[in-house]
């Protein structure tokens, strides 16, 4: 148990801090903290910010140099996230490629695929969307129905995906398709890389309960992609996808969870502005919010240690329980955020524009659903980590 920095890490911290000080300026400084995983607010600015980060070499830090990364250690990534959270720039826009597809490809892709797709991700030149969930299967991913069949040198894809974050901006999608309808549920699935700009792909925005656009549904109607654009083995897509949803999400979770400390500060400011801080009941909740936000940070730092291999907890378990704790705590924080604003919590701007605290109240409802519902996470924790018996299969 030692959180102190080696001299090398302290230097690195200084480097990050200096860069952020110099670059979180102008419009970027005026949009501190804007955006979150579940919204597309200020998209163009966030995209510009991502390109600024790319120019500084701060995206995909852990990737090999050859693909545009800097072979950063886990500790360096952690420090970057901590400093990033401290500076509170706009929320990154292009996390899909950087945090989800990229690591999957690094792990399971061919050399050609890596060379083709990774550098444009690090340079924010090509954007990605995920095609996993379908209307008929949310938590039960393996029940997917979208099908792909071979036609000469190409795959032909038919079906529908949904809950594709920022799908309307994607150039490419990584799509789980059933490629062997005869195989058992988990065995006939492949992960295909599909270009979006083609007649067979139709992307439509879904308006969320905040009144904003974030998620999309994507219709594949004889959509086509090259035969070699399979990530991993044909019919081996399930394992590839589980990797994508698994241990790689350390920094993504950390970025989201560290952001919450700013929200809590903002809640406290709102309570002060409303003269509500003498209210002892609200004070208790404000402290609970601050406690929750700190625990999110500490859980996240433990996850990074687990990813390094320096912990007895396995990273998958740690990621899962961090997520359950955080989504529950964040929902509580959202309610406290509204109470801190008192009567004014009801007032919105023109065109249903919400302030950040209202966004937290509504947006957190998605966090216990997307990326695996809390119920599914609790099943996994109870069975895999605690070793409790599986539920009996229906007879």
């Amino acid at each position, binding site marked *: 148990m030692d959180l102190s920095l080696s001299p090398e890490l302290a230097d690195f911290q200084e480097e990050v801090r200096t860069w952020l000080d110099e670059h979180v300026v102008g419009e970027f400084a005026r949009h501190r903290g804007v955006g979150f995983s579940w919204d597309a607010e200020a998209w163009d600015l966030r995209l510009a910010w991502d390109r600024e980060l790319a120019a500084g070499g701060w995206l995909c830090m852990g990737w090999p140099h050859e693909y545009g990364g800097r072979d950063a250690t886990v500790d360096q990534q952690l420090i970057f996230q901590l400093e990033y959270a401290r500076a509170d720039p706009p929320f990154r826009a292009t996390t899909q490629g950087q945090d989800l597809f990229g690591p999957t490809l690094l792990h399971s892709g061919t050399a050609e695929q890596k060379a083709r797709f990774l550098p444009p991700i690090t340079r924010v030149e090509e954007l990605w969307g995920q095609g996993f969930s379908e209307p008929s299967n949310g938590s039960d991913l393996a029940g997917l129905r979208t099908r792909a069949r071979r036609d000469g040198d190409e795959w032909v894809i038919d079906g529908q995906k949904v809950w594709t974050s920022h799908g309307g901006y994607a150039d490419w999608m990584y799509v789980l398709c059933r490629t062997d309808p005869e195989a058992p549920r988990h065995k006939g699935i492949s992960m295909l890389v599909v270009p979006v700009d083609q007649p067979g792909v139709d992307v439509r925005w879904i*308006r969320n309960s905040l009144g904003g656009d974030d998620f999309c549904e994507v219709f594949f109607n004889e959509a086509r992609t090259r035969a070699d654009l399979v990530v991993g083995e044909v019919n081996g897509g399930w394992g590839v996808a589980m990797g994508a949803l698994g241990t790689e999400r350390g920094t993504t979770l950390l970025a989201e969870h560290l952001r919450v400390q700013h929200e809590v500060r903002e809640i406290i400011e709102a309570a002060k502005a409303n003269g509500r801080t003498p209210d002892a009941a609200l004070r208790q909740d404000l402290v609970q919010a601050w406690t929750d936000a700190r625990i999110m940070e500490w859980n996240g730092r433990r996850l990074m240690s687990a990813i390094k291999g320096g912990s007895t907890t396995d990273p998958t378990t740690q990621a899962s329980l961090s997520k359950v704790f955080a989504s529950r705590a964040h929902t509580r924080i959202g309610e406290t955020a509204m109470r801190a604003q008192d009567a004014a919590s009801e007032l*919105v701007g023109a065109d249903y524009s919400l302030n950040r605290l209202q966004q937290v109240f509504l947006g957190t409802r998605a966090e216990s659903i997307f990326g695996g519902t809390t119920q599914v996470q609790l099943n996994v924790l109870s069975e895999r980590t605690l070793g409790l018996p599986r539920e009996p299969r229906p007879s």
Partner: protein
Amino acid sequence: MDFALNAEQTTLQGVLREFLSERAGETAVRAQMAEPAGFDRQLWKRMGAEQGLQGLAVPEEYGGAGFTFVELGIVLEEMGRALTVSPFLASAVMAPQLFLALGDTEACERWLPGLASGDTVATVALAEDSGSWESGEVRLAARREGEGWVLDGHKSFVVDGAAADLVLVVARAEDGIGVFAVESSAEGLDRTPLPTMDQTRKLARLTFGGTPATRLVSTDAAAAVERMLDLTRIALAADALGGSGRVLDMSVEYAKVREQFGRPIGSFQAIKHMCANMLVELESSRSAVYYALWAAATGHEDTSVVAPMVKAHCVDAYLSAAGDNIQIHGGIGFTWEHPAHLYLKRAKSSQALLGGSDLHRRIVAERIGI
């Protein structure tokens, strides 16, 4: 002695549920949402002409049907269920109950028949920019001018304040708190609809600049305002009860048909228990609301304790149920197109209206002598 609706009340409930589902379904609700002062005037007229709802609890001598607060609560429960966008809370609860509590018979004779028929839409303006609903915090000033009174200042968070034809304004006169009737056409009255997160309940900000007003006669205006607030609290609890019932129904319906992992999600204990817990809370809220309605209807001394108690308890339970309903629906429950978020927002706005649940529990604490 019966702790349950009687046959007549159950019939009223059934008729209303049918009326609202036919005349004010989700499409109608959404049509009124976008407009910050919108409400369905057609529906409002039908409520009056076909159902006589606005005058249900107004005494017969003032043109109403003379039913009790229990029947009014049944209406509010059904409107909460249907998320009805209408000035019913303001014009059929707050304003008439304030008239009645003040006991100014002349004013009752003059205005209540219009409220009872639905021809006049009225509201009460109490809170100001601070958001406080305590009459002790009122700053808007009333002063004599000639024979009458004029008002100067502002009001905010006025329920249906932009749509009302008549506003009962709580103002501070030289001799203390008074209630003043202001018609919407009055000189110097300016009304701005406030866009709200819950688009089914409309709020407005009103400014008064030398606005002429009629003072309502009363021995204790502050007490009358508090009585009106207590009844409004119970009304909001009834609205919350209706909403809670609807989200449980939505959850159960969806859990029966939505399949994951090869079985309806409603066969998983996690979902079953979530629904059963919603039922436990719903029916406990129902016990509380029905008791409070009866207490209000009979003028029971308990009313002033029970009113803030059930408001806090039932809106909190509603908020929790509305959140669980989204969780049970999964992704679809997070979309704008699905009604789940409308209930979450209505629950939240009910919690904020008249002051949050902490405040209401503080009021209970004072009233039970803690």
